[in-house]
């Protein structure tokens, strides 16, 4: 290759307008002589400013030198002249992949494949990027599920009984957050939520029909625990359950705090 480079350099010296500069610059690039390659390709472009292959090569030299932004500019200009340019799409696909823009990488590589469906390097690159995109999508989904699960617990995070004894439900009996445990620690939140929605409607109806005004809260005391129910917003219900040792007055104080937290959380969800 060294002799080739010497030969091509000599030819270019004899004829500075020779197209051999493209082959010479590529050979230099492959040898890692990037500054020399850049000088050659820029010199050649002075004579052949419309030669897109030379611009493409220049961008690859820039990428090898780590000058990515400049390379993007060069390839983008190439695509302005030829929107189906294989080298520019491959290059931009590579750079997008490198910066984590998988959608952008896929877009350019698919256009590159359309430009040359038999280009094995593009097929391999597409395979890699699609795999990474699928992996990223799965990770995002898992992260979303984790966030949702954390969100349920986070409604009452930091409050006494956040893990058991506080429940936020919507007016259709669906759990929004919190947890109620029954015997042996079994999660009975769904069942409680279902009954609670109906019970709260009955409380609203009772208060309205008996002229008690808007219902504010309801407390019930049972042999195995006390329950306090209040609507923190017009379409949600908050239930607090504690054992019998917690008097209803203390339940009211807890409910006030939990209600404020629930309202704040609901406002956050609405954004």
């Amino acid at each position, binding site marked *: 290759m060294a002799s080739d480079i010497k030969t091509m350099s000599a030819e270019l010296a004899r004829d500075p307008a020779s197209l051999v500069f493209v082959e010479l610059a590529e050979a230099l690039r492959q040898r890692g002589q990037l500054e020399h390659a850049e000088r050659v390709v820029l010199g050649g472009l002075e004579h052949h400013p419309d030669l897109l292959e030379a611009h493409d090569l220049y961008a690859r030299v820039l990428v090898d030198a780590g000058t990515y932004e400049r390379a993007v500019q060069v390839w983008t200009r190439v695509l302005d002249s030829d929107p189906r340019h294989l080298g520019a799409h491959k290059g931009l696909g590579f750079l997008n992949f490198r910066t984590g823009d998988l959608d952008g990488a896929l877009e350019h590589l698919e256009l590159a494949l359309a430009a040359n469906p038999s280009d094995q390097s593009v097929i391999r690159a597409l395979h890699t990027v699609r795999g990474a995109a699928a992996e990223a999508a799965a990770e995002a989904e898992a992260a979303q599920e984790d966030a949702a699960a954390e969100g349920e617990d986070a409604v009452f995070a930091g409050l006494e009984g956040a893990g058991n004894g506080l429940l936020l439900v919507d007016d259709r009996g669906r759990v929004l957050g919190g947890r109620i445990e029954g015997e042996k620690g079994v999660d009975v939140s769904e069942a409680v939520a279902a009954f*609670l929605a109906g019970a709260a409607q009955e409380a609203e109806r009772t208060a309205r029909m008996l002229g*008690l005004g808007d219902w504010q809260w309801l407390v019930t*005391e049972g*042999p195995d*625990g006390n329950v306090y129910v209040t609507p923190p917003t017009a379409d949600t219900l908050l239930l607090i359950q504690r054992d019998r040792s917690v008097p209803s007055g203390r339940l009211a104080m807890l409910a006030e705090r939990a209600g404020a937290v629930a309202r704040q959380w609901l406002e956050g969800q609405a954004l």
Partner: protein
Amino acid sequence: MSTRYQQALDSVTRVRGVRGAMLVAGEDGLIVAEALMEGVRGKAVAALAASLQKRFRQAMEAAAAGNPHFLHLQGDGGTLIVVPAPDGILVVAVGAPDMNVGLVRLEMLRAAEAIA
């Protein structure tokens, strides 16, 4: 109405702020005995109190808190309290929003014992 029932209700209605007290059949919401101030709709109170008690009993049982022995509904314009007595009877009281709930509760629990 038997004297026993009347005495039980009178002890509740003597508490300031209470506008009426009743004994209600928990199963069907019918009035067994009543001591109401004028304007209190006895039949509605009985029916709604029984229904409310039934609904919340289900929720309490689902939450493993057991069959409720005291229920207090607070509205911004009034209060309803229900205390189940033996034999499926409910002691029900309605009153002002600021009535002394602690005292009413005590009298209602006594009333529930008295009619057993």
